[in-house]
């Protein structure tokens, strides 16, 4: 040190920080309810909020969408097949005017069935398919079916997987051993193989699809429930409850379960897009909802047959499905972070 003389600070070196009001709210230590914390953390994340809004919008349309025009999901009008999307209110902007470009080997030409057939008042908002059915109505009723299947399967999975995992983790020892070996075997079977085989055996329909999905998706849920149970079962509150004379199942479902509801909800959110995907896959293979009912998957597989000539037929169901899967993933991500901010991102 060259300059050994120590500097003595004077009063002007210091300035008061103006933080009036800031110290009134103690953000760090104030007792807040857990769910309020979760709520705040969740809504801080933009992507999670976008996901939630998208899910809500799609659900609302899935409920009211099919009733918004005069068409029904199965009503065919063979004279009006393959009409391009037309929305009269948007026609003056040059979009949705009911024309489409046909490509042939000799070149492409613009055609408009509405004007050709003199149906100037008619509109198909998303166009009509190759049986003359309204794609708008079918997309939203398909979204409804897909959502019902996915959510029902996810909830049933939750109940089965959760109970399995909790019981296996709680009792431990030989029970756990046997239950885990069974689970390993169940997990060793590729899911799509089992779903496919099951649907071949059973009559196709909404309930059987839910049943097949239910049989395959519970493994992940039970793993999480078991891990959480192993973490919690040595804690004092479980001991206290047992000392007070609580039975095993009371402890499992009334004491431990409320404490692990967070990770479980997150897992449910993650399994919904998987279920939507599996249902769509089944429809694509030809094992989906029987006609004339439709799901997003069956619409995609119908649209696929003509997707180079009439791409507008496949776009609505694909966009809705991709958005649904995306937003459920976003919501699940947001929930996971909100529920357990310290947890490592997977």
């Amino acid at each position, binding site marked *: 040190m060259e300059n050994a003389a120590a500097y003595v600070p004077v009063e002007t070196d210091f300035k008061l920080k103006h933080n009036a009001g800031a110290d009134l709210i103690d953000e760090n230590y104030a007792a807040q309810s857990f769910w309020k914390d979760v709520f705040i953390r969740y809504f801080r994340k933009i992507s999670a909020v976008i996901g939630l809004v998208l899910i809500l919008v799609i659900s609302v349309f899935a409920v009211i969408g099919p009733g918004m025009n005069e068409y029904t999901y199965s009503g065919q009008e063979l004279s009006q097949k393959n009409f391009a999307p037309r929305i009269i209110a948007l026609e003056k902007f040059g979009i949705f005017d009911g024309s489409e470009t046909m490509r042939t080997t000799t070149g492409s030409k613009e055609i408009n069935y509405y004007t050709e057939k003199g149906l100037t008042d008619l509109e198909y908002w998303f166009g009509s398919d190759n049986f003359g059915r309204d794609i708008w109505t079918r997309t939203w009723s398909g979204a409804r079916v897909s959502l019902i299947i996915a959510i029902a399967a996810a909830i049933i999975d939750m109940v089965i997987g959760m109970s399995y995992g909790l019981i296996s983790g709680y009792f431990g020892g030989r029970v756990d051993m046997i239950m885990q070996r069974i689970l390993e075997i169940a997990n060793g079977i*590729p899911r799509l*193989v089992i779903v496919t085989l*099951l649907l071949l055996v059973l009559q196709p329909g909404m309930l059987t699809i839910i049943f097949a999905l239910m049989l395959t998706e519970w493994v992940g849920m039970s793993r999480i429930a078991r891990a959480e149970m192993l973490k919690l079962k040595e804690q004092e509150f479980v001991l206290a409850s047992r000392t007070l004379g609580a039975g095993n199942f009371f402890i499992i479902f009334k004491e431990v379960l409320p404490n692990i509801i967070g990770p479980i909800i997150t897992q449910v959110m993650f399994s919904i897009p998987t279920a939507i995907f599996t249902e769509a*896959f089944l429809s694509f293979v030809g094992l989906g909802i029987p006609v004339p009912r439709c799901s997003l998957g069956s619409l995609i597989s119908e649209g696929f047959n003509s997707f180079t000539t009439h791409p507008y037929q496949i776009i609505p169901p694909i966009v809705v499905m991709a958005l649904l*899967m*995306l937003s459920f993933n976003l919501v699940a991500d947001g929930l996971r972070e909100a529920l357990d901010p310290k947890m490592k991102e997977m």
Partner: protein
Amino acid sequence: MKKYIGKRILTSLFTLLAILLVLFILMQLMPGSPFNDEKLNADQRAALYTKYGLDQPIVVQFFKYVGNMLKGDLGVSYNISKNTPISQLIQTRLPISIRIGGCAVGLGAVVGLVLGLIAALKHDTIWDSLATVISVIGVSVPSYVFALALSYNFGFKLGWFPMLFSQQDVLGSSVLPSISLSMFTMASIARFTRSEMLEVLGSDYMLLAESKGISGAALIFRHALRNALIPIITVLAPLIVDLMTGSLVVEKIFAIPGVGSLLVTAIQSNDYNVVISLSFIYSAMYIGIMLVVDILYGIIDPRIRLAKKGD
């Protein structure tokens, strides 16, 4: 270690047997018969049943079946191409599926690693957000949506790549299916690499390495990435399996004559033996991959082995 590997192999074998049993039972429950041809009379049908051993008790059928399976004799196809051994049907198709699957895994792993690395190294910048957005989309949008989008835009509109698979132009016609299949792998690896790298970069030994004067590429590749790679191996295994199932639809879209499209055809034409054999092959591959990864993981990271022993 030997005990651990032995135990894992034993579990796998048992799982395989259980799968065979499940497949067999499910097949017994299937509606319809493989001999739906109306021209057959009762005698001819009975003769066919005897020929394929379908008239024997179920238990005998099952053990015969397991024995044949283990010998590699998968039986013959009933419907798709009459009397062709299934192993022969699969032999020509498996390489095609594996090649496209391999391309997809390779592509997905490399691009995913790069994306994840960028996201971790440029943490909290626009690059990080961009990589995150790409990976969220890749994880949540199913592979056949990508397949359709790619085949419409690059195959149909722009005409850069063929829309359908052809034996003449294997390389060119594998591009689009490989890309669409790799999206999920890419996105998952990117997410995983990002979080692992962030954790490794914040660890004490990185600080030590840095203070020893190691810098730049050596620091990232030799010290950080190597440690981050260990857990990434575990996600790769289930991803490969997902790929096999994802390939079912993608193979249909691009008309690839692979195993996936064979399974779809078999399902639709009620060809029991083919469905059973392919399900068995899928399951066997799945179990094999899981086994290899578990053992590899045990070798790489001794803590896993010890934890399992205490379990």
